[in-house]
């Protein structure tokens, strides 16, 4: 019944997918289905129809374009567990279970846009850009600012996320997350770091309604990297910058505290990598 033909499109090219979407403006775009399918089973989401991207081969796989890595939006998370960027690989490895990683896509993670989604801090720290394609052409936007509220993005009507572009310039990057279990858990909070040429860029998950980073935090993090600031300074800067949720999983106070700890630890790892720390 879910797959009733008039409501279900199975395009094989990006062009067909865009046409299918134009014909069914209310349809849910589904890739791996790891969010949409449970939502349907638990009846927390209804759908007027579906456009499945599963057979759009052009959306899968990674390539190089100049100094950017282009990751097709339909690339499964499992394909990224050995990515060169440490943050990307670590975020991919800690997502769900092997079965979920095989189905879940990087594009799905971005468009889902929930603040605890695994890949988002890594993409934000890595300063990813998003390739958005519509009938009228293609535009590229920064991931920073793409999410405007939990589950809400700047993706336009009739527009598909077709690729995630990541800078390949050498850097140290890493990603960590914490929860109440040691595997297969939604992040209570998460954080990612990129350290390049002595500058540190941090990003945080479930630290506010959208993936979060802050210039003020990065200034202090960079100072911590080269010894001009202490861990307490960074914790204070993080505590000021974040606005984490309070829920039955954890208090906002704990999340704020933990985000400061994670930030500090990530900068220390960057220090060690740069030969600056112990």
């Amino acid at each position, binding site marked *: *019944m879910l797959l009733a033909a008039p409501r279900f499109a199975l395009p094989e090219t990006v062009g067909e997918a865009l046409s299918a979407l134009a014909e069914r403006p209310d349809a849910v775009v589904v890739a791996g289905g790891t969010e949409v399918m449970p939502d349907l089973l*638990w009846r927390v989401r209804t759908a007027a129809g579906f456009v499945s991207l599963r057979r759009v081969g052009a959306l899968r796989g990674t390539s190089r374009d100049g100094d950017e890595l282009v990751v097709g939006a339909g690339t499964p998370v499992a394909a990224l567990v050995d990515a060169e960027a440490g943050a990307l690989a*670590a975020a991919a*490895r*800690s997502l769900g279970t092997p079965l979920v990683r095989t189905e879940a896509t990087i594009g799905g993670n971005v468009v889902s846009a929930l603040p605890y989604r695994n890949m988002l801090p890594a993409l934000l720290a890595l300063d990813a850009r998003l390739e958005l394609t519509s009938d009228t052409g293609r535009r590229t936007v920064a991931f920073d600012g793409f999410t405007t509220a939990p589950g809400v993005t700047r993706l336009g009507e009739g527009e598909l996320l077709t690729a995630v572009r990541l800078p390949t310039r050498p850097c140290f990057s890493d*990603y*960590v*997350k*914490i*929860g*109440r*279990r*040691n*595997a*297969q*858990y*939604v*992040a*209570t909070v*998460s954080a990612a770091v990129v350290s390049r040429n002595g500058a540190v860029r941090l990003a945080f998950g479930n630290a506010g309604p959208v993936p979060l980073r802050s210039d003020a935090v990065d200034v202090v993090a960079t100072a911590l990297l080269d010894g001009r600031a202490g861990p307490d300074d960074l914790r204070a800067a993080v505590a000021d910058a974040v606005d984490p949720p309070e829920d*039955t*999983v*954890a*208090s906002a*106070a*704990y999340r704020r*505290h*933990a985000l400061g*700890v*994670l930030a500090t*630890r990530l900068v220390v790892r960057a220090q060690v990598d740069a030969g600056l720390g112990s």
Partner: protein
Amino acid sequence: MRRPDGQAKVRGEFSYAGDLHAEGMLHGVTLRSPHPHARLLRIDTAAARALPGVHAVLTAADVPGDLHFGLTLRDEPVLADGVVRYAGEPVAVVAAIDPRTARRAARAIVVEYEPLPAQTDPTLAADAEPLHAEGNVYRHLAYECGDPRARGVVTVENTYRIGMQDPAFLAPEAGMATPTADGGVRLEVATQWLHSDQRQIAWATGLPPEKVQVVLAGVGGAFGGREDVTLHTHACLLALATGRPVKMEYTREESFLAHRQRHPGTIWLRHSADASGRVVSVEGRVVLDGGAYASTSPVVIANTVTLLQGPYRVDNGRFEGWSVRTNNPSCGAMRGFGVPQAAFAHESQMDALAAALDLDPLEIRLRNALRRGDTATFGQRFTQPTPVREVIEGLRAVPLPPAGGKLPGGVGRASSPGSVRRGVGYAVTMKNLAFSEGHVDESTATVSLRDGHATVHCACAEVGQGFVTVAEQVARTVLGADTVTVTQPDTLIASAGSTSASRQTMASGTAVHRACVAVRDRLLARVARERGLDAGLLSIQDGAVTCDGTPLVDVAAATPGHTVRATEHFAHPPTTALGQGDVYVGFAFSAQRAVVDVDVELGLVSVVQIASCQDVGTVVNPTQLLGQIEGGIVQGMGLAVMEEVVVVDGHITNPEFQDYLIPTIVDAPEVVSVYVTDPQPGMPHGWKGVGEPPLCTAVPAVAAAVRDATGLPLPSVPIRPEHIALGIGTPPTVTRTTPRPPATTGGTALSEEPADRPGTWESEGAAGH
């Protein structure tokens, strides 16, 4: 030998209750209350009934028999009767041609509620406006022994909290009811206790019990959560109303709403000890939140209160407890049955005493260990093996694991070796075995043997624990059978009681053993008669009938084509009401050592290893025994560090496995398991129950280890990361007291009248002068 159902389960071929199917069957769904407490002003089912494909819509008005059921008080309506008392209470049930139509019909039922204030604080419930004609106190009990005001040199007290744990069995509730030709109904269902279901279904349907046939369907775990009736009666009512088979199967969310959880509780304890660490007196007070309906709350509270003493000799004390009605989810049986709560509290106190006296945690436990011949605070003498010292010594002999191993936080990689502190904690517990307080604990089995093939019929529900293995093992051992069939349990044979209370190997295993011995003796008598031999010289060894040690003939060929059959019954010696003698059938003792690595800054825990030494009577099947130990330990560590049904204003906020976390294999510790085997009197081979103690002990052991790593008091489980990272939790109050010897000795005085409000006896002062 291997588990008979093992291969099918591993291959995914085992047929669970959710796989039930019949030609022409209808699907039943349940409409549940969205409110924790509300008056039902109006139910209009006309629109639902009018939908095509809908065969029945039933409300309380359609229940032909007695509307009320329950394991103890019979206070729960089959379908809501004027008032709903918890969020998720069944209001109406629907049968339709497919689940989708049934769900649509359920949504089409119009229910007008008048929401009422929800009473969700158990400490206020006892004195609050009654939520039910039966009142808000399921049971209050209070008793004293010796002189509760006796004091040693140090007194420690604290209040401990235990969260609500879900049994979290993997296969949600499912069953299929089919009308029978005699006007009755046959229910195939995943359950723990067929005859209890039968009785309660008979009440509601108005049928005599013999017209309600209950057959066990494949069970995917139980842990106490299937001891109460859930969909059973609804499916039968729908089948009788429609004349067609009706299948019901809960979603995971419904499963959380519908079945009974472990009682959350608050326990205040005050221990006083002399300078050597000997406990002089214990005072304790318990409040358990029983939720909206009684279930087994009146029985569970007795376990918690009486076992507050732990496996230690306590001559002086007073103990009091309430299980109360609230508008929270109903609580009932779950593995441990009130004892994990007590164990967490008394073991926390033993560590607090050890710290106050600068004693080794095992040493203080050894100095207080119960011995055979001691008398419990509730008056029962420990006349059976009581190997408390032995399990502690056995545990002490297990070497500690090396440093290192998996880091806290697991796949999140937030910890590094430098951010982690190791902790070691100990716990020793006592768990009562089998039914208690006068509830008859019995089972019956029929065994037949023909040409070397044995068939075992018993109403013992196989829920994963491995009764099928034990039954086959007994039949092979006693009868020399080549092959064994354990038939699917049903109500055509007498009750085997519930698969709970660590009791089925003792009760049903013994009934099977007795039936096998009777069959063997009849077989040998026949062989002796046919061959003119003295039956007293015959025995069965290695599959052959032997005479004075010499093989005569294989069992399979001994009486060709002839079936030998016997039915035997077993009942434990009777128990009595509290204060009147032996309240419990027996006890098992368990000691564990947990080793944890804790990332203190983040509050993340990795349980590295748990070593266990358990009093098991005798090892029946080493693999299954280890399975019980490992499973119990993992479930216990789950309660210690992550598992909690979070209830806010009467609503479960996490009724699914994304937010109700149970340990994964990454979380599971290495388990080292050793045993004390001191045979239990009256049991074949001296076997005794093993299923619950490992859970009871793991909860306090893990908590103690996390305390050791962090130096924090951690008086609540589950321990949340923020309890550690932000240092949340009140430490025990330690008072140096003037010793006061007991004024009187011995004796237990019972009181069923509340002595005081639930809470602490603060006003009396820890100094106790």
